[in-house]
C-alpha cells in the first residue's frame, strides 16, 4: 500500500534533484527535454540537440532519456506537480487528450506567436497537424510520426510463385497469397501484426471510412463519447482475423512490437507494422523485402487515408518566462526543412513538411528508396509510386484515397487503457474464448466505462 504515492514522490524527488543541479558556469540557459524513446532513435534526438546547441550561444538543450513513452509522461507529471517540470516532454499520440485538458501546457502556436517566430504550419501535412490541433490551432510540435504499412518477404513470394513486385492490395488477395505461401512451404504463417489495436482496429476503421467513436471520433467533446468498433465492419474484420488464426493465414504475436521477430526470422511472410521500422528492418532483415499499403476490403467501403502514430513535443508551463525563448528557438530549429529531411532519412519517421517532402522528391530520395514512400502515399492518398519515377509519363498523379472525417485521427481520454482493453478482448477472440461479436461488445462496454470515468474526472 502507498506504493503508488511512494513511487510518485520518489520519482518527483529524483527529477527535481536532477533538474535543480548547479547551473553551468557559462550562463547558457538550460532547456530540459525529456524523451520516451531509446536506442538508435534517441541518439538521433541527441544529435539534433547537439547541433542546435552548437548553432547558438544562449541555450543548451539537454536531452534526458526517461524510458518508455508512459514513463516519460509519468515522470513529467510528477515533476510538474513538484513545480519543477521539464520545458519539453515527448508524449505519444494516445496521450493527446490528456495533455490538451491538463491545463499544464503552453500551446506551441502561442509560444511561437509570443516570441515573434513565424512558422508556416500550412506547409505541414494535414493528417499530422490535424491530430494535434484544437480549433485549428496547433498545440504540440509534431516530431516523430509514422503510419502502419505492410511489410512482405519478396524471397518467400518468389518461392511460392507469387510476383514479388505485386504485393496484395485487398484482404482477399492477401488471404490468397498467404494460402499459396503456406502451401508452397515458403512460410509457417501468412502474416502477423504489431500494435493490434492501432493497426487492425483504429487504422482499419480509418482506411475504410468507418467511425471509431461517436462525436466525430472524440474531436467533438469528452462528454458521452462511445466506441463504435462493434458494428458490422469491426465484426467482419476481427472475425476474419480470428478465422485466419485457426489455419495460420494469420498468426497472433502479442501486443506492441513483439510479433516482429516472426517476420525477421522468416516464419511469417508478411507483417503489419509501423513505417518507422524501415530503418531497423534494413539493418536486421537478411532477405529481400518490400513495403505496401494496408490492404482494403473493397466496396461498399470507401478507400480512405490512414492515421498517424508516434509522438509530439509538448511544452509545459511552470518555468521562468525567459527560458521559453530558447524553447521556441529550438522548436523553430526542428521545423526547418533540412532538419526534417535529416530526421526522416536517419530514423524512418515521416518528414512532415511539404517543403521537406519536395526537396526529398527532387533529390530522387523516394525513387532510390521507394519503401520510404509507401507511408506518405497512404497518409496523403496519393498513388503508391513516387511522382519522380513517373516523370514524363502523363498527367499529375490523382489521389487514390479520400480524406474523410473518419481518417483524421482519434481524440479519446484514457486512450492508453482503451487500447489495452481492445487488445485484451482481441486476444480473447483470437484464442476462441469469445466470438468477434461478444469480444467487441465487451471491449466497447469496458471502453465506454473508461470514457465516462475520464469525462467525470474533467467535468467542470
Amino acid at each position, binding site marked *: 500500500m502507498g*506504493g503508488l504515492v511512494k513511487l510518485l514522490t520518489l520519482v518527483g524527488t529524483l527529477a527535481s534533484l536532477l533538474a535543480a543541479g548547479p547551473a553551468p558556469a557559462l550562463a547558457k540557459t538550460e532547456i530540459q527535454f525529456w524523451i520516451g524513446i531509446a536506442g538508435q532513435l534517441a541518439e538521433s534526438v541527441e544529435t539534433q540537440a547537439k547541433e542546435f546547441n552548437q548553432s547558438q550561444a544562449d541555450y543548451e538543450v539537454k536531452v534526458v532519456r526517461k524510458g518508455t513513452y508512459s*514513463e516519460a509522461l*509519468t515522470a513529467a507529471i510528477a515533476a*510538474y506537480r513538484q513545480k519543477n517540470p521539464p520545458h519539453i516532454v515527448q508524449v505519444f499520440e494516445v496521450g493527446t487528450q490528456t495533455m490538451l485538458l491538463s491545463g499544464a501546457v503552453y500551446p506551441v502556436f502561442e509560444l511561437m506567436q509570443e516570441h515573434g517566430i513565424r512558422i508556416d504550419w500550412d506547409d505541414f501535412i494535414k493528417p499530422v497537424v490535424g491530430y494535434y490541433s484544437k480549433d485549428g490551432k496547433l498545440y504540440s510540435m509534431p516530431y516523430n510520426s509514422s503510419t502502419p504499412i505492410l511489410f512482405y518477404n519478396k524471397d518467400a513470394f518468389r518461392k511460392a510463385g507469387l510476383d514479388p513486385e505485386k504485393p496484395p492490395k485487398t484482404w482477399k488477395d492477401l488471404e490468397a497469397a498467404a494460402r499459396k505461401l503456406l502451401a508452397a512451404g515458403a512460410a509457417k504463417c501468412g502474416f502477423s501484426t504489431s500494435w493490434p489495436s492501432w493497426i487492425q482496429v483504429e487504422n482499419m476503421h480509418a482506411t475504410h471510412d468507418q467511425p471509431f467513436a461517436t462525436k466525430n471520433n472524440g474531436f467533438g467533446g469528452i462528454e458521452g463519447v462511445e466506441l463504435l468498433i462493434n458494428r458490422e465492419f469491426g465484426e467482419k474484420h476481427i472475425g476474419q482475423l480470428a478465422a485466419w488464426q485457426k489455419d495460420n493465414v494469420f498468426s497472433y504475436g502479442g501486443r506492441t512490437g513483439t510479433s516482429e521477430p516472426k517476420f525477421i526470422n522468416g516464419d511469417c511472410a508478411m507483417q503489419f507494422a509501423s513505417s518507422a521500422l524501415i530503418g531497423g528492418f534494413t539493418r536486421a532483415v537478411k532477405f529481400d523485402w518490400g513495403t505496401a499499403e494496408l490492404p482494403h476490403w473493397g466496396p461498399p467501403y470507401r478507400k480512405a487515408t490512414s492515421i498517424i502514430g508516434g509522438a509530439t513535443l509538448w511544452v509545459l508551463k511552470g518555468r521562468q518566462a525567459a527560458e521559453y525563448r530558447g524553447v521556441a528557438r529550438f522548436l523553430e530549429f526542428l521545423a526547418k526543412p533540412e532538419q526534417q529531411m535529416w530526421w526522416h532519412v536517419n530514423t524512418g519517421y515521416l518528414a512532415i513538411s511539404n517543403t521537406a517532402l519536395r526537396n526529398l522528391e527532387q533529390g530522387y530520395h523516394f525513387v532510390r528508396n521507394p519503401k520510404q514512400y509507401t507511408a506518405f502515399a497512404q497518409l496523403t492518398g496519393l498513388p503508391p509510386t513516387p511522382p519522380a519515377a513517373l516523370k514524363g509519363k502523363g498527367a499529375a498523379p490523382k489521389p487514390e484515397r479520400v480524406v474523410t472525417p473518419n481518417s483524421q485521427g482519434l481524440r479519446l481520454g*484514457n486512450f492508453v487503457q482503451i487500447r489495452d482493453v481492445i487488445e*485484451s478482448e482481441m486476444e480473447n477472440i483470437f484464442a476462441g474464448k469469445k466470438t468477434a461479436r461478444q469480444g467487441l461488445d465487451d471491449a466497447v462496454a469496458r471502453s465506454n*466505462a473508461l470514457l465516462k470515468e475520464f469525462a467525470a*474526472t474533467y467535468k467542470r
Partner: protein
Amino acid sequence: MKRTVFADRWLPYLLVLPQVAVTLVFFFWPAAKSLYLALFKSPPFGGRDIFVGLDNFRELLSSAEYYDSVVNSFVFAGGVTLLSVFGGLAVAALANERIRGLALYRTAVLWPYGIAPAVAGIIFLFIFHPAYGVLPYALSFVTAYEFNWLLKGWVAMALVISATAWTHLGYNIAFYLAGLQAIPRSVLEAAAVDGAGSIRAFTAIVFPLVSPVTFYLIVVNMVFAFFGSFGVIHAVTRGGPGNATEIMVYKLWSDGFIGLNLGSSAAQSVILMAVVIGLTMLQFRFAEKRVTY
C-alpha cells in the same frame, strides 16, 4: 524475557525515534495519502481534485475485471507460494545430504535469488517466447503442440508462476537449510535405529521440526507474491493474454501509471492492503496453531 530499564526517561524514546520516523515517513504517510487519494477523482497534472466519496471503490467492486484480477491474484499467490516453499524444502533437503561438491552446490542453489525479477522475466522470455524462444523452437521439432501462451491464458499463468517461484526459491532454500541443520542428528539416528526409512523420518521428524520455518515462509512468500511480483509479469505477459495474468498489484500499477487514474489506483492499493492484512491475520490465527516451536 529480560526487561531493560533506562535511567533516563527520554533516552528510550530517543533510541526508537529513527525507526519510528522511518516508519512514519515511508509507511504511514504514503498509506494515509493513498487513503485520501482514494476518495477523489483527480486529473493527472493535478489542479482540481473532485471529492467523490466511495465512488472509486464502488466502481471497482462493480467491475467484472476487478474480480478477475482478485481471483488471478489468489491463483498466482497460491501457486507461487506452494511451488517456491515446497520446492525450496525439497531442494534444501537434497542440499543437506553429504554429497561431493556440496559447497559449490549449496552456493549454486541460492543464485536465483540474486537475480532481479525483471531480469528473470527477460530470461524466461528468451526461453519461452513463441516468436523467438528456444523451447518452443525445440518443441516444434518433436510435437505439433503449440506452446502459445500469447493466446492461452492458463499457460501464461503457469509461466509467470514458475518464473516468480524460481526467483524466490533461493530465499526459501536458505531458510530451510538453516532449519534442517538445526535438527539434532541424534533424533534422526534414533529414528533410524527404530527402523524408520528416510521418507518416514522426513514426514515424522523433519517436517514437523521445520514447521516454524514453513509457517514463516508461507506468510512471507504470500505477501511477496501479492506485492513484489510485479517485475516478472511486466516483463513477460503484461497482464495478458486477455486479462489472464493481470493480478491486483499489476492492475493497480497500470491503472495508476499507464492509465493515470490516480483515484482508482489508490482505492485498489487500499483494497490490496486490506486483503493482505486479512490473509496474514488468518494465517497467524489458524495456521500457527499447527506449528511446533
